[in-house]
């Protein structure tokens, strides 16, 4: 189909004509559902409590039934996948890595230079051939991760990306106005700090190793990990000192 033929415009093939017709249908159907929840900010509750399922919900259900009936997917496998993404793969894994790097300088060195084996030490593998790189913040360098072209994200260690990371505002602005983006997240950087933006354009995925906050000198890895936010590992926030500590 047109997708796989770079030189063909949508207008040129009969298949594409059908496809356009289909897209139109899909969009109309999606439109009603999306009106309440597109880009998801604060209106999801309405969506959750809809009495009548949205048309999109029905279309997705219908597709799943079709695939199950045709023997193309195993419904139990889908359930296990949902459980994995909702409950097992998430930013707690990244936080564990960061906390260990803070607590153990030798581990940090391995993490920065031999990331794959450093992850394997914690039982976290690299998947799908994507290679993870860890970039370290300091008093002089602040790293920020984006994927301007789609939604590449270090999901092996952070789980699925939040809506804002996949949104047009973030993808368009992170490269041209990183300081403005950071300010929107409440992160103000000194003028002389280098802002280093990593646009994930290929097979590499980036995890930011944030600065360890003051006041945590004798903390255990578990206590440290609890301080590390997902946002700090994408680079839009810093890890805040614990309350009561002298910053």
């Amino acid at each position, binding site marked *: 189909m047109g997708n796989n033929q770079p030189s063909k415009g949508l207008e040129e093939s009969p298949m594409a004509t059908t496809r356009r017709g289909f897209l139109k249908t899909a*969009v109309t159907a999606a439109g009603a559902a999306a009106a309440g929840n597109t880009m998801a900010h604060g209106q999801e509750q309405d969506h959750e409590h809809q009495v009548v399922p949205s048309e999109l919900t029905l279309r997705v259900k219908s597709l799943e039934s079709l695939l199950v009936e045709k023997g193309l997917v195993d419904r139990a496998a889908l359930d296990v996948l949902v459980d994995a*993404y909702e409950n097992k793969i998430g930013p707690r894994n990244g936080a564990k890595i960061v906390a260990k790097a803070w607590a153990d300088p030798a581990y940090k060195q391995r993490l920065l230079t031999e990331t794959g084996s450093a992850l394997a030490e914690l039982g976290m593998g*690299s998947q799908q051939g994507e*290679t993870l790189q860890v970039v370290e913040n300091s008093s002089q360098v602040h790293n920020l991760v984006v994927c301007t*072209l789609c939604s590449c994200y270090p999901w092996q260690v952070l789980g699925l990306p939040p809506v804002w990371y996949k949104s047009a505002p973030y993808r368009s602005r992170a*490269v041209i106005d990183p300081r403005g983006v950071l300010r929107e997240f409440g992160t103000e950087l000194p003028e002389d700090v280098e802002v280093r933006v990593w*646009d994930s354009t290929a097979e590499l995925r980036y995890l930011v190793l944030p600065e360890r906050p003051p006041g945590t000198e004798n903390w255990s890895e578990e206590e440290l990990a609890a301080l590390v936010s997902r946002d700090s590992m994408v680079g839009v926030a810093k890890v805040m000192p614990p309350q009561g500590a002298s910053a």
Partner: protein
Amino acid sequence: MNGIHDMGGMHGMGPIHHEKNEPVFHAPWEARVYVMHRAMGSWRKWNGHASRHAKEVIPPAEYLRMSYYERWFTALIELMISGGLVTRAEVESGRPAPGSATATPPLTAAEVPAYLTGSSGRPRPTVPAPRFRVGQSVRARNLHPTGHTRLPRYARGRQGTIQRDYGVFEFADTLAHGLGANPQHIYSVRFTARELWGEQARPQDTVYLDLYDDHLEAAS
């Protein structure tokens, strides 16, 4: 392709909405779309690059109006149809075509953990040799392919420095279209923010892109 998905540097997209304590999925259908996409990938009728391109070809106005998982839903249907796994009539009716064969799913529940942590199974290529070396000045080529490319518009024609050689990878731009693995090196290329955005940028700020040999030429 010079599509709406290539949005680095665009203005006018509005403020960033940062939701506190965001759930992984905002509705059950989002989760089902995502995992169906992952599970159907086990048929190996398409790769991740073709999957990205299936979203890039969504017409721009619709791309922007759709939520993220609506794009995935649209792309999944198109990928399954072009991969010969379902027909459009089946998708529209929600029923298998009369007399169609029943398959056996390649991914079972028991296999999911290994599927999630396993590698693609193919060893990384080791040739060819790199065309550029660390420290070398390079220019992103001024290319405007109508198909999939991982060279964003904002970098084209701009000069940068090879910061690191990540080794050999299969080439996304051709793999997306079934045009071969075309293995080559990926480099971390450092561009100054001023080279990309002019005087408005801070002099010390930088943008790092991962670019393939075919995206680059030596800068004089």
